[in-house]
């Protein structure tokens, strides 16, 4: 019996590597407007297929079509465009600032701007996000001051986190943005706990959990699904599938399942897959999931299909593991360009207004940076005190830490 077949280990590989021609022909993409919009109290079993399709609103002609369209008016869409453009401009400046040594580290959102920006607008005040390091759009779309973000990035004397955290690891309770952790996936189950607390207190606030495609492999992703499924927690479970986890393509985390959304099926958690580069689609799906949660109908799993167009972080060089042109071949296009085209198409925007907006946004970002730099950058100017390192470890400083602080001279 033994010995018939020689076993062999299957190690998944991406279709292409540096030097190869990018090929996304295997990515099945549904036509915009073709995927149905179920009622929010639908039985999960009845929408199994929605974990394998891609909900899209903007078609090739930049029109908003189908049952998921029609939720946002022109003002809201222009706001959305401005948020995405701001995030992109912000990223560009901060990438430069990092290269100039003004900060140690940065992580950009290039190509993924729609996901967090559009999601944010589906939430109500008091709701809480548990983000990863790639959802600064949540802050920008909620009008968190850019200068505060930069103060944190520069670890300067106005840094709201007192220099304690790595750049971009923001925290803002007031803006519904939980403190970012460097440890992947931990926030996913914390979000479920926050949502459970809201339910325990008969509150109406809901939570949103965020995780990357690669990080779904982490165990706290499972913990999150288990607890959310068992207690029907009012939480939206977001997976941002940007195809890459540093140098590792999504196939390593995903394994045999066709999609990450499918992970919800084992828990009877309704799972939707959406075009992450389509501001309108992201917003519509987010709204659906948020409504479900707020109506006490429990968790929803959403996979945003997008592409990490930039490097993983300023410490990374993607040309070592994927074709340089892969980003251009990404079939879902660029979220900013797509929303811009739609606004123009509906007569609510123009190339001129866009150019003007771009310039204004650039000015805003530069002005914010100037202001932030007045308070210092990592190696120059104002900076947090070493005393700040000793503070806040505990609510009250215990004696041993006070001795250490004194020994350190502060």
């Amino acid at each position, binding site marked *: 019996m033994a010995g018939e077949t020689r076993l062999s280990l299957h190690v998944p590989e991406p279709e292409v590597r540096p030097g190869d021609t990018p090929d996304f022909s295997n990515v099945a993409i549904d036509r915009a407007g073709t995927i149905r919009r179920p009622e929010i109290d639908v039985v999960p079993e009845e929408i199994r297929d929605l974990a394998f399709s891609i909900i899209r609103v903007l078609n090739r002609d930049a029109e908003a079509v189908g049952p998921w369209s029609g939720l946002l008016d022109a003002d809201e869409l222009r706001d959305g465009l401005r948020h995405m453009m701001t995030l992109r401009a912000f990223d560009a400046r901060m990438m430069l600032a990092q290269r100039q040594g003004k900060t140690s580290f940065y992580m950009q959102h290039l190509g993924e701007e729609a996901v967090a920006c559009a999601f944010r607008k589906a939430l109500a005040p008091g709701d809480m996000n548990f983000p990863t390091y790639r959802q600064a759009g949540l802050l920008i779309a909620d009008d968190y001051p850019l200068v505060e973000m930069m103060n944190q990035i520069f670890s300067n004397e106005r840094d709201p986190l007192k220099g304690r955290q790595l750049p971009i690891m923001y925290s803002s309770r007031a803006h519904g943005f939980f403190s970012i952790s460097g440890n992947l996936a931990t926030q996913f189950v*914390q979000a479920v706990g926050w949502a459970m607390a809201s339910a325990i207190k008969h509150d109406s606030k809901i939570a949103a959990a965020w995780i990357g495609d690669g990080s779904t492999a982490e165990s706290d992703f499972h913990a999150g699904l288990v607890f959310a499924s068992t207690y029907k927690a009012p939480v939206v479970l977001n997976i941002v599938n940007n195809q890459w986890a540093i140098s590792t393509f999504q196939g390593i985390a995903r394994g045999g399942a066709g999609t990450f959304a499918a992970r919800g099926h084992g828990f009877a958690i309704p799972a939707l897959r959406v075009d992450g580069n389509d501001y309108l689609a992201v917003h519509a799906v987010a709204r659906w999931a948020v409504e479900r949660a707020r109506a006490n109908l429990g968790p929803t799993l959403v996979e945003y299909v997008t592409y990490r167009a930039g490097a993983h972080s300023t410490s990374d060089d993607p040309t070592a593991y994927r074709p340089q042109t892969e980003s251009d071949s990404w079939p879902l296009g660029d979220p900013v360009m797509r929303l811009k085209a739609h606004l123009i198409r509906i007569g609510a925007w123009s190339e001129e207004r866009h150019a003007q907006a771009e310039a204004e946004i650039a000015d805003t970002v530069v002005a914010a940076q100037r202001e932030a730099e007045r308070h210092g950058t990592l190696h120059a100017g104002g900076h947090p005190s070493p005393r700040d390192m000793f503070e806040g470890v505990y609510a009250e400083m215990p004696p041993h830490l006070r001795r250490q602080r004194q020994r350190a001279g502060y």
Partner: protein
Amino acid sequence: MATMTMIEAIRDALDVAMGRDDDVVVFGEDVGYFGGVFRCTQGLQAKYGKTRCFDTPINESGIVGTAIGMAAYGLRPCLEIQFADYVYPAYDQIVSEAARLRHRSNGDFTAPLTIRMPTGGGIFGGQTHSQSPEALFTHVAGLKTVVPSNPRDAKGLLLAAIEDDDPVIFLEPKRLYNGPFDGHHERAVTPWAGHPLAEVPAGYYSEPLGRAAIRRPGAAATVLAYGTMVHVALADVAARGIDAEVVDLRTLLPLDLDCIAASVRKTGRCVVVHEATLTSGFGAELAALVQEHCFFHLEAPVARVTGWDTPYPHAQEWDYFPGPARVGEALAAVLEI
């Protein structure tokens, strides 16, 4: 005053905490309907409802992780890890999240949770029902670590832990649940009834974290102990008629260094005892601190009596456990120098 076992005192503390503050929630594996495998949460679900005291899936990381989320919302979760030996799957959430949340968010979010877990050996529980992992918590900035040795402290310290605005690791020496244990496993079990520290005040009181208690004053040597080992040390000192001062640390972090240093400066000799493995155990920290702060008062090196550097065995439990013979030997040796 009522006499309580350690289990009853803990249950009473939870009851008082839940009664005083609606934000206190209690959960963990088997803690809801059944009331916990050691019955510390018995009756709480019936009294406070199943959204304030409930069973969880078996996922320690999920238990602590959801508790952190609840704490960030504004609740005060008090959760149970069924045995300290099973806390490791939750270690990341404790170390990387609960412990650092206040600091890294500059107070924007905090994690006032209490993580209870039965600890220590002496019940033939083998390697996965006997461990004493306190040193794995004392090394982590942002955590507090508490080990009560009697019912009265257990209630007062647990109430203080739940009220504390920082995450507290609350280690319950399971060998003490039903009675004090002096290490003489061959003798009949003593119940708590009759023990002065089993007299537990009714209602609310709290025992501040960070204060040691001198259980027996003495001049010849200092014994630093916590949990079960307090009773072992006391019994042994009494049996041998040694005039040792026995200090019950109660809270390992923050540590009552003033009390420790005062005692050792007085006695000039120090024996540290704990059940955990020797190397990098909390005894190492105690020895390091004592030699640093009392160097010129020490007549002999600080001695450590601890579990051996092996997994906690089943059959050889009483060879592993740092019982009266080993404590006595160490005291004798320290006194001879």
